């Protein structure tokens, strides 16, 4: 056999040892720069928005002197540059200003409201991802046959129903008619008091306090809101998973795996590892979009989270609250995307660690 040997040394690619660290450090550097941008934007966006908060606070019957007094009290009469330096200086020390209405530090309000939203959004995205990927993958595997048709029917329904409406329907059926779900009164029933604050996450704090009945109650209160968001977004996951897993199942590497006599579950795993980065990315994007974007569902379930808080702040032109929300949403989004970059980079060897 005449055959010129081929050098195995042709392989190019990242050095595995330093690759992941370089990726992490590079992303973190970018994160810091982007956070600074978000801080500036949150100041500018709010400072140039129309509407006069002092007039709104004073009410329709107030005269000019009262309005000017409020303006002075809130520091709104000072020049923009001065307010910007003040704002950025405060941010560095963790001072986001005080709410115009509650007079509480915005940072404290965020700390008390964010855990409720994070619990809701994290569990909802987890449910949506698991449910949606299973439905989508089954649909892709049985394309055009009955499991696919059933999956697509439900996907279509839950995609078409607005989340708040689904929430109301669930409350009607499971609380009002069947009586198996607790009243939509927030994270706990009216009669229950929140556990001593440790992490701010009520289910965890009630466990820390050793109060199991409170823990169970907090889980029961989570079911309907998580189901609402979970089902609606599961539909989106199912659609994405059906397409990406379907494409992977039709890819040549999967055909080759099958031609090599690999068992069907291994073949499915081969298809899944090819499509998982797309699904993980999708989960990250949905998570970031839901933070604060689920305000209306929070409203429906009287969920005392950051979405409701920000909505109220916006309607009352409570500038520090709005700025705080822009900042929190921006920072969490950036952190999510940074983590996403790192995770995807580690999951997929084709992505260059640069």
């Amino acid at each position: 056999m005449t055959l010129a040997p081929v050098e195995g040394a042709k392989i190019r690619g990242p050095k595995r040892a330093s690759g992941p660290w370089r990726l992490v450090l590079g992303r973190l550097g970018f994160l810091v720069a982007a956070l600074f941008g978000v801080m500036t934007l949150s100041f500018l966006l709010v400072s140039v928005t129309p509407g006069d908060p002092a007039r709104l606070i004073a009410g329709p019957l107030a005269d000019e002197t009262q309005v000017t007094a409020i303006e002075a009290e809130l520091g709104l009469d000072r020049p923009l540059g001065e307010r910007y330096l003040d704002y950025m200086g405060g941010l560095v020390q963790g001072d986001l200003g005080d709410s115009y209405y509650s007079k509480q530090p915005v940072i404290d309000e965020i700390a008390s409201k964010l855990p409720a939203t994070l619990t809701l959004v994290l569990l909802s995205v987890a449910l949506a991802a698991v449910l949606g990927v299973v439905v989508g993958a089954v649909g892709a595997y049985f394309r055009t046959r009955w499991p696919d048709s059933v999956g697509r029917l439900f996907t279509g329904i839950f995609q078409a129903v607005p989340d708040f409406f689904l929430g109301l329907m669930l409350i009607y059926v499971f609380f009002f008619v069947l009586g198996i779900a607790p009243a939509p009164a927030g994270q706990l029933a009216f009669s229950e008091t929140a556990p001593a604050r440790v992490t701010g996450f009520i289910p965890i704090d009630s466990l820390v306090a050793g109060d199991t009945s409170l823990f169970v109650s907090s889980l029961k209160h989570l079911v309907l809101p998580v189901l609402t968001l979970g089902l609606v977004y599961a539909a989106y996951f199912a659609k994405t998973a059906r397409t990406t897993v379907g494409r992977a199942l039709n890819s040549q590497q999967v055909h080759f795996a099958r031609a090599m006599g690999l068992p069907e579950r291994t073949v499915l795993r081969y298809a899944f590892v090819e499509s998982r980065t797309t699904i993980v990315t999708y989960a990250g994007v949905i998570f970031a979009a839901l933070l604060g974007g689920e305000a209306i569902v929070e409203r429906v379930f009287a969920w005392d989270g950051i979405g409701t808080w920000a909505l109220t702040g916006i309607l009352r032109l409570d500038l520090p609250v709005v700025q705080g929300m822009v900042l929190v949403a921006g920072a969490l989004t950036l952190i999510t995307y940074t983590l996403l970059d790192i995770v995807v980079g580690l999951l997929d060897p084709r992505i260059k660690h640069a």
Partner: protein
Amino acid sequence: MNSVAETILDVRNLAVSIATPDGVVNPVKGVDLTVRKGEIVGVVGESGCGKSTTIKGVLKLLGPNSTVTADKIELAGHGDISGFKPRQMNTIRGRAVGFVAQNPFGSLNPIYTIERQFYELQKAHRTGVSKRESREIARDMLNGVGIVGPERVLNGYAHQLSGGMAQRVVIALATTLSPKLLFADEPTTGLDATVQAQILDLITGLVADEGRSMLLVTHDLGVIAQYCQRVVVMYGGEVVEQGSVMDVMVSPQHSYTQQLIGSVPKSGEKLNVAR
């Protein structure tokens, strides 16, 4: 007297039908195929004539919307496999019949290392294979397909390989379980001309050295003439002619074969170039 070599694969009246939204299509109709021991049989025909579908049909690799029927698919040592269930087919695929597809980049898993892909293959067919054992076998296989320094390839990923290297890895995978029969579906499509020759030399060499047989699907008559002993000409989903390469090339019986051979430019022929 020359004894006729043992038959490795005997396919009778193979037909494939695929259900599409616009109705049932029949890309392969009544195909008969025979591959004897040590023989390389070329399957030639234009794109869409059913040559790839035929070999995928034999291995039941077509999608769920397709139906494969045959009077018999006799595979030496396994009997008639035409009625085999998917689970039984998995004992044939890779083990009795190796498969080399076109586009080597697409054939390899993009996420797993090459080493892992050798391990998955062996784990599927042999119980109790250790990772270490698998790695040693993989190293030998890569050496056998002319890859010097297989360690780096084993630790690497498909996208880090050149096209020729990737196809060598695919050939190594396809022959790891020592199948007696190889199906090669246009194994050099998309590779450089020089690499094409290397890959064909390699794969036909592996067939000859180990006393294997091969079905080589191609649309290149030059490849048929150079590497195959017998040829099957397909047109419109049917076999229109088959026989020894010499007979078919010298005196083609079917008009399609005549046209196919006539379409190959000959050296010394006057070129009809517009000036």
